[in-house]
């Protein structure tokens, strides 16, 4: 085959699949009940269809597996780059989404390859139609998901000592050990309060200067600090895709000079599928918890 025709067909696959993907994502913004929510269809069905479109464009080229996988990776990278440009997604967000994009584009390409080899038009139309129906149904459906992450540590200090560092604490100087924090994801560094009473404001300050404004809704010294998040930063990096709703520290006196410190966080996800993004949400929330709780432990145990 002429090299120019070959290159043209490859480029056609890249261009058509990406134009399709971004057009359909743009159109569904108007269909979705909540345009800010990114749904299963956009992360699963769109990349799958992108792969099938590529396979359709490349069906006459007899491309080897190795090249097909390579071109799928190029197409995935292109889609991720275009997401950064058009959807204004941040680097960490794109890093999190990339396994889904690559996996589904490769799957789509190889499913498409098998489909177009068989030349069964009825089957091909049925598969593509089914994917479109799934996409439409998922796009117009209401998506809501809230969850709680809970972590427990033992502090070798009585509740009275621990409480001093729970409500507000000085800057965390310890080096980051969670890989996403090391990559630039903001991590908590300090907490400040307007006053030591129920209803007072609290501010949780993050490493990049972000401030979460909180209101203490339960203030029981040496026992329970619960706060609602009243304002949080909107940022392309994660923050637009997850809202922390409420935080809580529960202190339990173990009667032997130690305290069981429980940290709870309630959050709402704006990205789906839950089976994928909740893994990340839990991991990130857990590491935020542990960074703060380890700091509280360090300050409380310091003599």
């Amino acid at each position, binding site marked *: 085959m002429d090299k120019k025709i070959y290159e043209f067909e490859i480029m056609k696959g890249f261009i058509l699949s990406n134009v399709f993907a971004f057009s359909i994502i743009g159109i569904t913004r108007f269909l979705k009940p909540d345009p800010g929510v990114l749904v299963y269809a956009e992360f699963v069905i769109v990349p799958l269809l992108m792969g099938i479109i590529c396979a359709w464009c490349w069906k006459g080229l007899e491309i080897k597996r190795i090249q097909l996988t390579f071109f799928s990776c190029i197409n995935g990278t292109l889609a991720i780059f275009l997401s950064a440009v058009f959807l204004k997604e941040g680097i960490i967000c794109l890093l999190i989404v990339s396994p889904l994009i690559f996996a589904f584009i490769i*799957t789509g390409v190889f*499913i498409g390859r098998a489909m177009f080899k068989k030349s069964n038009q009825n089957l091909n139309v049925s598969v593509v139609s089914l994917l479109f129906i799934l996409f439409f149904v998922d796009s117009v459906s209401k998506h809501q998901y809230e969850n709680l992450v809970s972590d427990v540590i033992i502090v070798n200090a009585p509740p009275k000592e621990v409480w001093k560092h729970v409500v507000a604490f000085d800057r965390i100087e310890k080096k980051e050990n969670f890989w996403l924090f090391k990559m630039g994801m903001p991590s908590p560094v300090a907490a400040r309060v307007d006053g030591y009473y129920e209803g007072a404001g609290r501010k949780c300050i993050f490493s990049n200067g972000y401030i979460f404004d909180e209101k203490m809704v339960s203030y029981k010294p040496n026992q329970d600090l619960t706060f609602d998040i009243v304002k949080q930063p909107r940022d392309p990096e994660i923050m637009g895709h997850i809202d922390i709703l409420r935080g809580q520290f529960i202190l339990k006196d173990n009667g032997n000079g130690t305290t069981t410190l429980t940290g709870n966080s309630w959050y709402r996800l704006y990205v789906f599928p839950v089976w994928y993004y909740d893994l990340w949400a839990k991991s990130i929330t857990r590491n935020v918890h542990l960074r703060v709780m380890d700091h509280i432990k360090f300050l409380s145990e310091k003599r």
Partner: protein
Amino acid sequence: MFDFVVRNFGFLKHVPLLPHIFDSMLKLCTFVFKRHLLDAFDRIEGEVLSWKGATISIHKYGGMQFNVHKKEIGHLHSNGLLDVLYSRKIKKMMMEEGRISNHHLFKKSGWISFYIVRPEDEAYAIKLLMLSYSRKVIRLQPKA
């Protein structure tokens, strides 16, 4: 990695598309770390397709399935694991050659597993598939 996932998360194979996604991840790993295997898969596919009545399809649990007259003779996962179906008698005989093992899941069945790792494994993989193909063709032939 493959064995760990199959052993611990094998029950998820019935979730639509999930095995195919897993196979795509295997393909990506193979592409990065054992690129030469993808070319071997192409050659195996080409060879099998040259046999009369042989076709290729997507295996229901991910990978490439080899069929003869729409009956499966084996399948190849994207990490190079080839599973081929024989009778138990043939399996026992083949096991004596020492290159194959029991199927990674169905140990007591006629299924066998063979890992394609080195270049010379490609020819043996084709031999294994050919044996299963020949038996299936003989069985499917109308009796005189």
